[in-house]
């Protein structure tokens, strides 16, 4: 029994990390008032970039950096659509997901990256440390991104709440017209927010393939982008709360393959539904519980045109 728990808990962080990273990227975007429904697409692009670099012989960390870069380059495109051309946030988000799904599938097939196993990211510490009884695998069996993730959480929370740029970001998300009147370049802030958020989302996707699945199949992200969007609402746009929520989802996802292994018989496909069902449940819970909660950025999903202000 204790082995089961150690085994389970030690695998949770690597399932939770993509959710945390994606949620951080979404928080940055949405704090600036950009409703980023394209998360799934950004993650796919990052995931493919990670695999592509690894297949071509790049080291794991460089591949992850490349995934983040691919995410932010994709972000430029999305930013141009949303902040530049002022296309409806929902439509541009959906279009971005469609585009990314098709583009990644096409490139992966053309380049022969599909079903091509890669070596992937290895744990940071040597085996001797992670062989320590009970806590060894949990504390020392993780890879570098896992240890890095709380630091990123801290950084995002710090920048959003303690710095001038964070203040500008929030001002743009709460009331772009007032922010504009105060001399903040709304379009520029939104551009930057999407590009930096895109880097986080790309990294999240890259982590999925480089460190978790270690292989590319079409649609490898499997709805995790949508779950991350729900997670951000659940976390009320707070970085640390997103970390907690992501751990919850990590626990569930890590449990799925283990339930069958210990001999509890639940139909396989019903088990695979659980992350999505949990997400629905969490969204309902947040909506009921936080009915009078004002943490959602007030201008989320609204465009800003200087000439339109009244």
């Amino acid at each position, binding site marked *: 029994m204790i082995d089961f728990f150690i085994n389970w808990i030690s695998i949770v962080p690597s399932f939770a990390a993509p959710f945390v990273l994606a949620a951080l990227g979404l928080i940055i975007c949405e704090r600036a008032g950009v409703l980023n429904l394209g998360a799934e697409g950004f993650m796919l692009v990052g995931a493919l970039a990670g695999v592509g670099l690894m297949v071509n012989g790049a080291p794991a960390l460089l591949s992850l950096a490349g995934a983040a870069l691919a995410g932010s380059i994709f972000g430029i495109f999305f930013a141009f659509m949303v902040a530049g051309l002022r296309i409806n946030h929902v439509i*541009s988000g959906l*279009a971005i997901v469609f585009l990314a799904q098709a583009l990644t599938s096409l490139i992966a097939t053309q380049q022969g990256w599909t079903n091509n196993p890669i070596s992937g990211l290895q744990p940071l510490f040597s085996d001797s440390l992670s062989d320590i009884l009970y806590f060894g695998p949990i504390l020392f069996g993780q890879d570098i991104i896992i240890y890095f993730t709380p630091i990123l959480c801290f950084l995002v929370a710090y920048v959003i709440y303690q710095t001038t740029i964070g203040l500008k970001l929030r001002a743009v998300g709460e009331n772009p017209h007032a922010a504009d009147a105060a001399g903040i370049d709304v*379009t520029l802030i939104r551009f930057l927010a999407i590009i930096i958020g895109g880097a986080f989302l790309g990294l999240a996707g890259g982590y999925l393939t480089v460190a978790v699945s270690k292989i590319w199949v079409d649609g490898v992200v499997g*709805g995790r982008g949508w779950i991350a969007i729900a997670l951000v609402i659940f976390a009320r746009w707070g970085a640390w709360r997103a970390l907690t929520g992501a751990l919850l989802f990590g626990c569930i996802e890590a449990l799925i393959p283990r339930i069958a292994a210990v001999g509890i018989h639940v139909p396989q496909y019903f088990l695979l539904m659980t992350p999505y069902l949990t*997400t629905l449940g969490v969204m309902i819970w947040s909506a009921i519980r936080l009915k009078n909660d004002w943490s959602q950025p007030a201008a989320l999903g609204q465009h800003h045109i200087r000439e339109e202000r009244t």
Partner: protein
Amino acid sequence: MLRKFTEKNNAIMSDTNYPSDKKRDFQIIPRLEVRQNSPEWLRFLIYTISLLVGCVCAVLVMYWVGINPADLIQEISILLFSGTRTIGAILAQTAPLMIAGLATAVAFRANFWNVGLEGQMIVGTIFATFIAIHDVGPDSVRLVLMAVAAMLGGIIWIAPAGFLKLKLGINEVITTLLLNYIAFNLLLHLLFGAWKDPVSGFPHSAQFDLVERLPKLGWENLTYALPLAVFLVLLVWWILSFSRVGYLLSFVSSNPTMAKAVGAPVLGLSITAIIMSGAIGGLTGFAIASGLEFRMTRDFFSGFLFSGVLIAFLGRNHPIGVGIVALFMAILVLLGQSLQVFYQVPFALIQLIQAIFIICVAASEFFLTYRMHWRN
């Protein structure tokens, strides 16, 4: 009155915002002005230009994956002019696409972003297949029962998202998409379990009996799925354009706050549109299972969410527009299939082209709404 005031206000503001000491003739980022009205010819012009840009991008993408424009033209002409067989195939493909576009357009009309079409198709088809497998009801009404069951399944699958949106304000894009994943797992559970084909053991349902298939039209391989689709288009057109519900619905979609203020039953109208969308979504699955493939397969729904959104979007959420765009989409899909066979390009190419068209048409909206000023 108010508009005049704001106009004046804006004029004053833009004067103060652009002080005259910074004299530049040209600026890189244009100043935007909201158009007060956009004439019909401009609408048409911009829409046409965006489609042309989309076509150019599509040809470029095809060239990138190794298909020459000359080969492309040849493939298209084979598809269109090589006899009735390919025309029949195109029309057969048009039927489900038309219904899928309608399902999406109806929801979009009510500002409900239904991206759960695939989930609604799956559950609708599961319901219809249940009737077919268990031979519910007498043979003579079996098809009607299946269609009703499919609509019911679609409604059941859109209802939670609609309820959560209207009652709790939960974003329907996320809920409908999550429901897609749940429906897909449900489908796999059935096809790999209880409903596996008893004859071959493959993961698709047993073949439908003759009474459970939509009857043939007698021309090529067409079935009554096409008349059904055309009927639905005309029905929805009537509802949206000529009935009281449609009139009020257009009111709601253009200005919900105003509609509420003058006492239009906004909630009831939204519910009607959502239910209609779900029911038509279920019928899409029925049209494929009963009119095209004669069984429930593992991936009968794939790509329809994509196509549905695109068709609704290009057709401007108008039923007749949807019908016309669906025909072109069917040509595109068949073109993709033949390219897949003869040039070994993945089907994702077609989806990429669809995504490009969505982006082009969405971007064209910008030029309709705003006028750009490059000079100070």
